[in-house]
């Protein structure tokens, strides 16, 4: 299999996304407003010397800003394009071509989200500066590399969740419930709003055992240098394990779904 078509797909998605410049500006505004509000809240709740669940004020603000930005890539969603193609029958074009469907949409997501991630970086950077000396950087090159690898695996894992939730369109005429799950429950379980350590111990332990923690919480802790080498290997092993499990599940669901596919509207 050649990877070139998928690089081209990502490039085309980036080009297509770049045609909607007003969207990016609006997404900038939409991202900035709640970020200001939440940072003000954290500043009010946590004094410079205070800690919350073992996190200093600087760590908490770094975690918060970092995860807000990372979630653009490591947050699973119901990918509307897949759900639409299944429901409306446009999946037929992909089945006709010698194409790896899952890879095609992964490339589309990466390409189309890149401008938003760059806008997000532009939003996050001034806030990171506003945190000042409290802002936390990974402690060294090895920590940066460990963080980068955990993010790459988180992105791959998130996409497998995205693909799985989108494939439910083979069975569900309406994915709204799945959307709600992805928009509200998964971010909480992934540690997008708060580090899982903030939750009561039993809840935190349960959430850490779920795969969603590997999407955001684990990479963010690696960034903050709060994971020792043993913990990092264990975390990466979990990421790989969940990834393999989801690849197997998705393959099975895809084949079952194709049996149900009616290719309507042609």
């Amino acid at each position, binding site marked *: 299999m050649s990877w070139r078509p998928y690089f*081209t797909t990502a490039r*085309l998605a980036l080009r297509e996304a770049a045609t909607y410049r007003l969207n990016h500006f609006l997404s900038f505004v939409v991202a900035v407003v709640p970020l200001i509000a939440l940072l003000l809240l954290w500043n009010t709740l946590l004094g410079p010397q205070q800690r919350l669940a073992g996190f200093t004020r600087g760590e908490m603000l770094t975690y918060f800003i970092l995860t807000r930005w990372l979630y653009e890539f490591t947050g699973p969603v119901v990918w509307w394009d897949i759900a639409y193609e299944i429901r409306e*029958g*446009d999946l*037929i074009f992909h089945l*006709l*071509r*010698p194409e790896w469907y899952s890879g095609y949409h992964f490339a589309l997501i990466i390409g189309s989200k890149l401008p938003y991630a760059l806008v997000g970086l532009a939003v996050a950077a001034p806030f990171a500066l506003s945190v000042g000396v409290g802002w936390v950087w990974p402690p060294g090159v090895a920590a940066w590399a460990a963080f980068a690898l955990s993010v790459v695996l988180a992105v791959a894992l998130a996409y497998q969740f995205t693909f799985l939730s989108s494939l439910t369109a083979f069975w569900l005429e309406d994915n709204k419930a799945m959307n709600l799950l992805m928009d509200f429950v998964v971010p909480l379980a992934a540690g997008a709003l708060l580090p899982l350590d903030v939750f009561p111990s039993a809840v935190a332990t349960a959430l850490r055992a779920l795969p969603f923690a590997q999407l955001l919480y684990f990479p963010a802790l690696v960034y903050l240098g709060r994971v020792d080498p043993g913990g990092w290997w264990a975390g990466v092993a979990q990421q790989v394990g969940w990834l393999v499990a989801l690849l197997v599940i998705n393959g099975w669901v895809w084949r079952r779904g194709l049996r149900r596919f009616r*290719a309507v509207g*042609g």
Partner: protein
Amino acid sequence: MSAITVRHLHKTYRAPLREPGLRASLRHLVAPRYRTVVALRDVSFTIAPGEAVGYLGPNGAGKTTTLKILAGVLYPDAGQVEVLGFVPWQGRSAFKKRMAFVMGRKGQLWWDLPALDLFHLFREMYQVPAATFRRRLDDLAARFRVTDLLTVPVRNLSLGERMKLELIAALLHGPQVLFLDEPTLGLDVMAQHEIRDLLRAYVREEGLTLLMASHYMRDVEAICERVILLDEGRIRFDGPLTELKTRFAPHREVTVTFAAPPPSAPAAGWLVGREGPRFRWRVPRQEVPRLLQELTTRYEVDDLSVQEPALEDVLRQIFTTDAPASAPPAPGG
């Protein structure tokens, strides 16, 4: 050897039954009810390499379902299908690289980007060598007169222009078998005519095997030598287009305008219309020469015409009567 072989193909769908009203909606949640729709019943035919076949039938006859099974995007319930030696629904890349499917109702080009960008993506997917791609693209763009449109975002093109580019997208990898589903749907008369001519020339020159479903009989008449009639999932006729008319429309319509009103009209077939000196008869085909001879020798005639019934009329007659259409054995199988 056949390019396409279909034997005893069956396909049913299960469609949910939704009655109106809140109570019925709630009942459907708990105990959904379904009806089974039979799309194809024991359909068999073969198509030789290079043959162009029209696939005709009323809405819901099963035409598109057949095409989708042959293209490998639907699984049949029973039956055997081989296209170029492949079982389509096994989804092998080697098969996909040798066939194409174009639908008049749907397009695969991206709305916001020029078609050329997508053509390059498809070149990579189908692994077409760059030189071959360039040659084919230049040829197709020139034939379809769209060279200037390749770099225009698709959203800015007319329906006819988009259809031409969709056809190019489907032909760039050099398929041997082409499935067309209503390729001129929604186009104006000029665009229909143009696309029909382009397709006819391309299919003949390249020796493509073609199976085309269409409601526009002119598409079929222009491009196909053979037709398969499908009705309620069954084949009702399979044979040359000329035979279809001979078998199901054994009459011709003879219209004559006399120079002066005749004292008595010649006896032939059925007189179906009379307006002043203008008479119309429906005449059995074999009686036409005798009638023409009588008209030209015994009467003073201003104008005379003999018309074959339009294919639309023939089909309407077939599909609105319950008379068995007596499907002959498919040519070559």
